[in-house]
């Protein structure tokens, strides 16, 4: 097992699987943040929009991203688009809800203070609301990153894309039945998850110390 781990970690083809997964993951996270944070800011600061969209969101959220695999496969094919799209879908929710939650927790006194100094609505949003929401948003991103990783590996595993850790695992299982390679793949995927989780937690602690 350890020997196999070393062998694989020095093998260029395994490395390319890892790189493919990590790259797709980073793209998915960036897209998810770009969609979820602005949406969260709008939903969190305009109650009317929030009430209006609640039914839609509550209906969409419980749809498990894995249920979308068959549809995404036929619509988007076996390329990286499929796994990125599904990972984005899965990663949206934690970021969105944490952003909304953060705005709920916003101290009204801070807003009043800013208003007193003549800050406009947009100014309040970007100078007061966003900074004070940042810790929650980062927590959301941390949760989203691990969820996205899981979805990504699951999709690779089930949908047989041509490259990625999940694909490596599936190949090892179905082809030669190499259980040691399956384990290596799983351990590496888990390690990426833990590194992401701890890395983002450290970022939150270091840069957002308030």
């Amino acid at each position, binding site marked *: 097992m350890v020997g196999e781990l070393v062998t694989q970690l020095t093998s260029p083809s395994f490395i390319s699987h890892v790189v493919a997964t990590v790259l797709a993951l980073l793209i998915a996270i960036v897209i998810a943040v770009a969609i979820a944070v602005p949406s969260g800011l709008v939903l969190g600061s305009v109650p009317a929009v929030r009430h209006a969209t609640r039914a839609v969101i509550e209906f969409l959220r419980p749809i498990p991203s894995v*249920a979308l695999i068959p*549809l995404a496969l036929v619509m988007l094919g076996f390329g990286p688009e499929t796994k990125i799209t599904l990972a984005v879908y899965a990663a949206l929710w934690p970021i969105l809800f944490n952003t909304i939650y953060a705005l709920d927790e916003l101290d009204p006194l801070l807003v009043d203070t800013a208003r007193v100094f003549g800050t406009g609505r947009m100014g309040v949003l970007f100078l007061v609301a966003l900074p004070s929401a940042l810790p929650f948003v980062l927590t959301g991103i941390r949760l989203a990153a691990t*969820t996205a990783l899981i979805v990504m590996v699951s999709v690779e595993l089930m949908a047989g894309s041509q490259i990625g850790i999940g694909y490596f695992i599936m190949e090892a299982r179905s082809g030669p039945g190499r259980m040691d390679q399956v384990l290596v793949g*799983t351990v590496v995927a888990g390690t990426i998850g*833990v590194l992401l989780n701890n890395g983002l937690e450290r970022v939150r602690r270091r840069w957002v110390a308030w």
Partner: protein
Amino acid sequence: MTKFLQRWTVFAGLVVVWQVLGWLADDPFFPPPSKIVTAANEWWVLEPANFTGHVVPSVVRLLSGWVIAGVIGVSLGLVLGRSDRAMEYAGPLLVFLRSIPPPALVPVFLLLFKAGTSMQLATIVFGVVWPVLLNSVDGARSVDVTKVDTSAVFRIPRWQWVLGVVLPAASPKIFAGLRVSLSLSLVLMVISELVGTDNGIGSQLMQAQREFDYTRMWAGIVLLGVLGYGLNTALLAVERRALAWQPRSRDEQHA
């Protein structure tokens, strides 16, 4: 009432927009809702065998897996949480488990999946028990000192201590864990059916995919959405009743 209208007006509006766009575009990938509803009707209502043979087993698997996991998680969690000795042994393991986000176990289960309902059930139970267990441990440990002292002074019987003090004190955390587990059960149910079996909503999705029947695929996804929404709403209603004693009524919580 106005809020209710506000909520569902936009929802209905979006459905209408989708309907119109679906008609105009006439794209097989995006069938309008009317077609999806018709497909669902043909699939599950006009052929009840499909409903009893696929939807019902799925829901039964999901619920029984979740309930079993809930019972195991809560009882084990309360015991562990109130026993220093047990925590000495299990503590490091729990710390490790806590660092793993619950969905991270899913790929592992993908590897373990084999055909057969009992195996599927076992996998769902094993996959969703952790959030309940960890939250029950946290909840049981959070009984404050004054309540522990009060119970000790009045020398209440053991069953009253467990059911009357520890369980209610831990219940807010337990419910949070149950919510996470419920949505995880849905995910594991779908995955297990996509991979493992010849019955269930997931296997019907795969069947529709093989037949390139996009409308039925959408119907399956919508059904899963409705199922998830319904289960979550039901659990929230139960939680709201069970935790009505809490001084500050908590609004909807998003886990």
